[in-house]
């Protein structure tokens, strides 16, 4: 099964038990808006941690109905994050979400050795894009977290993303390892990594997916372009997941999809005990809502 659009995520979570989402430093308008919308849609059961008065004020001003939602008062933002993380590590919540606080503070708590959410896996960013000009949702990793991943880190990033896609119903997602060209070039490390990842996949050292690369962006998403170049590939033109060579490429691609192609996006952090909704403060309420939806689908 593949996702045609982000709304398809609803089908995955429908009928399942509501996931408990804990919002750290909850006094943030967009986050609260998205969380309450997801609550109304029966997707999650939220727990709001933060400055109670601040939370109530925002909700009143925006007509958010928070009847029945648990609020834990903790005015100190650092403490509210710690509390939220501890709730997850003690299995009282299924999803962690960032409110009005910097990402680094939250991640520091996530990585805490005693009560954090470490699993031994690398943390990586995973995003789904709904673009009108592509025939299905396309996943992209890592556009926000790992700066210049080496081969071992790329393996971990692919494994995180494939694990998530498997949970979303993709039994064998098609993974394109992105390069500037589809040829192997010793001077472009990304193309060498791509060759290695392909071979490891062929040898079943990276499982549950089909990897091909290097593929240039056009070959990865356009069958016509791949055929034009004579590339024989199971992935080319039908990519489910794009693996980025580094954060610069990833971030620019992500932002150009959103700004120029008017893509809808949902994103989470993978690799911790639970999915983490860590959208940027500038993301729209819709993006935050879709990310919550994704986190609920991924935490099954």
């Amino acid at each position, binding site marked *: 099964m593949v996702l045609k659009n982000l709304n398809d995520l609803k089908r995955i979570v429908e009928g399942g038990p509501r996931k408990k989402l804990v919002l750290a430093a909850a006094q943030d308008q967009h986050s609260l808006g998205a969380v309450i919308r997801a609550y109304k849609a029966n997707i999650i059961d939220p727990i709001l941690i933060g400055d109670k008065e601040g939370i109530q004020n925002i909700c009143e001003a925006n007509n958010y109905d928070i009847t029945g939602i648990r609020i834990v008062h903790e005015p100190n933002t650092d403490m509210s994050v710690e509390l939220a993380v501890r709730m997850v590590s003690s299995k009282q919540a299924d999803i962690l979400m960032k409110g009005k606080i910097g990402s680094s503070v939250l991640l520091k708590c996530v990585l805490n050795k005693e009560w954090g959410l470490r699993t031994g896996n690398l943390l990586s960013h995973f995003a789904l894009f709904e673009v009108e000009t592509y025939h299905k949702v396309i996943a992209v990793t890592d556009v926000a977290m790992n700066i210049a991943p080496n081969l071992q880190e790329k393996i971990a990033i692919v494994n995180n993303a494939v694990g998530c896609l498997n949970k979303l119903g993709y039994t064998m997602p098609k993974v394109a390892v992105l390069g500037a060209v589809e*040829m192997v070039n010793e001077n472009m490390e990304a193309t060498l990594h791509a060759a290695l990842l392909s071979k490891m996949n062929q040898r079943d050292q990276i499982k549950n997916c089909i990897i091909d690369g290097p593929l240039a962006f056009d070959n990865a998403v356009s069958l016509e372009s791949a055929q034009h170049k004579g590339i024989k590939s199971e992935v080319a033109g039908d990519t489910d997941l794009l693996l980025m060579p580094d954060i610069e490429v990833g971030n620019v691609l992500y932002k150009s999809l959103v700004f120029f192609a008017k893509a809808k996006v949902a994103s989470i952090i993978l690799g911790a005990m639970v999915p983490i909704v860590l959208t940027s403060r500038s993301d729209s309420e819709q993006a935050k809502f879709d990310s919550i939806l994704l986190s609920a689908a991924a935490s099954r």
Partner: protein
Amino acid sequence: MEEQVLALKKKHRIAVAWAQDTNTIGALYKAVNKGIIEAILIGDPDRFLLACKALDIDDKLFTITESATETKASSEAVRQARNGEADIVMKGLVGTEKFLKAVMDKENGLMLPNAVLSYVAAIEIPHYHKLLFITDPAVIPFPDLDQKIVMAEYAIEMARRFGIEKPKIALIGASEKMSRHFPNSVDYAVMCKMAGRGQIKNCIMDGPLDLFLACDKKSNEIKGVETSVNGDADILLFPSLESSNPFYKGLMLFADGVLAGLIRGTEKPVIVMSRSESEMSKYYCIVLSCLMA
């Protein structure tokens, strides 16, 4: 192989540096008799005559060019090839190093511009269902990625001369798994992708593969590894001289292998064989060089 060369119905001229041992002269005599070569023996005429007498061969069958030392004989053989007086150069009783020095001489040698000097051998083994080409059992100690690519291309070219249009080439390692502890496996993965993208042409390539997976179909079935070579390799590419050299010598010693090999990267075929090699192996080298000329 012999049949193919006989079918060419062409006589190649071989310039042999310091050809005064009985093995070399015996091999040349055999090839002259078959009508595939004309041999030019470069060296000390008295010693040719002695060797011919010892073998009971008519020395008139050969052209003789006098030369005083091994080094001069090597340079002369190379010079003849450069001038078109000979099509093939062969090493006689000269040390390999001295001989190759003449071949690799920047001004007067036989190297193609910027070419990598490497060695490809074809081995006939009773226990394998076809000829097996191996590279590089003689020249490059620890090939890097670029050298491995060229080695593959030389071997593919040779296999194609034998009529194998798309030879199966196995990149040999200790296991089929990728591991950063085995840097060669990294090179191999890159090469496979290059073959997949048409950057290395005319072959079916897979690696890393161990020798079983490369040459034994049953091992593929037992291990359940899907490989495009599938136990039917035409070419084995080895990661180092220390692995390829004992491999071929083991085949000669223990498995009745017969070998023919050639230097690649030169304008014209160059035959280099260990001085202790048998007459038969030397003869096969001559036949191979005719096929590649």
